[in-house]
């Protein structure tokens, strides 16, 4: 009985945290000034927002096949979110969309183009 209460409360908490962070990430996507900073806000949605929501749902489901499927979606997020984010950043650099920087610690190349932006 008490164990059930604890699990219920924990899943409620996790789903609440997930909802809040999803909204915060979306607000960040609207507020941030350029593509690269928006990517940071997007990764907030994909990692903590999605992760907390899915963990909360896993606690709700208990030990069933549904939990395994939720874990699979979570793993899918962990493996694909960085790939997509990195692809967007690299494509933006390739098209010479330069980030607005406060400070740049890279050794400078001629033309100001980074060697990775092939």
């Amino acid at each position, binding site marked *: 009985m008490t164990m059930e209460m604890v699990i219920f409360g924990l899943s409620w908490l996790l789903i609440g945290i997930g909802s809040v962070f999803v909204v915060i990430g979306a607000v*960040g996507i609207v507020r941030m000034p350029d593509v690269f900073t928006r990517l940071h806000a997007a990764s907030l949605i994909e990692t903590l927002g999605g992760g907390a929501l899915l963990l909360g749902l896993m606690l709700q489901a208990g030990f069933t096949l549904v939990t395994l499927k939720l874990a699979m979606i979570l793993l899918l997020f962990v493996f694909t979110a960085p790939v997509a984010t990195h692809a967007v950043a690299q494509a933006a650099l390739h098209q010479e969309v330069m980030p607005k920087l406060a400070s740049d610690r890279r050794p400078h190349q001629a033309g100001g183009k980074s060697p990775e932006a092939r």
Partner: protein
Amino acid sequence: MRTVSLGIVLFLFWLTLSGHYTNFLLSVGVGCVVLCLLLVHRMGLIDSEGHPIAMLPRTLTYYPWLAWEIVKSSLGVAKIILSPSLPISPTMTLIKARQKTSVGIATFGNCITLTPGTLTTGVADDEVTVHALTRDGANDIQAGRLNQRVAKFEGSA
């Protein structure tokens, strides 16, 4: 060895997704797994890069550590987004990755991107270009704690 473990993983995947355990569906699953293994074997993809089983025991300690890092940096980014003045100071840095294999460097880049606040924009040989949301984030990543941890996870340090 690797082929057998990949086969087990693929069959567990089938069991999870199907949810029906009749004889017919199980035998179809075995057939699919064998077909996949034959194809992958022919393509020569089963090596330490395609199916890194040696890293498996170390994931048990590495993933919780990474999750905690993600939570910490997420709170930082959320604070930045919610503060009215938007105190960002985007910084690009170049970091030398300490990992030996390409799997290790890919893991390092992915973990940088996965933690909110830092983002890999390019990899050339063993130098990783990182875009950080704030100067503090760039200092953090240059301090090299994550670098060290991923090298340990990879098994080369």
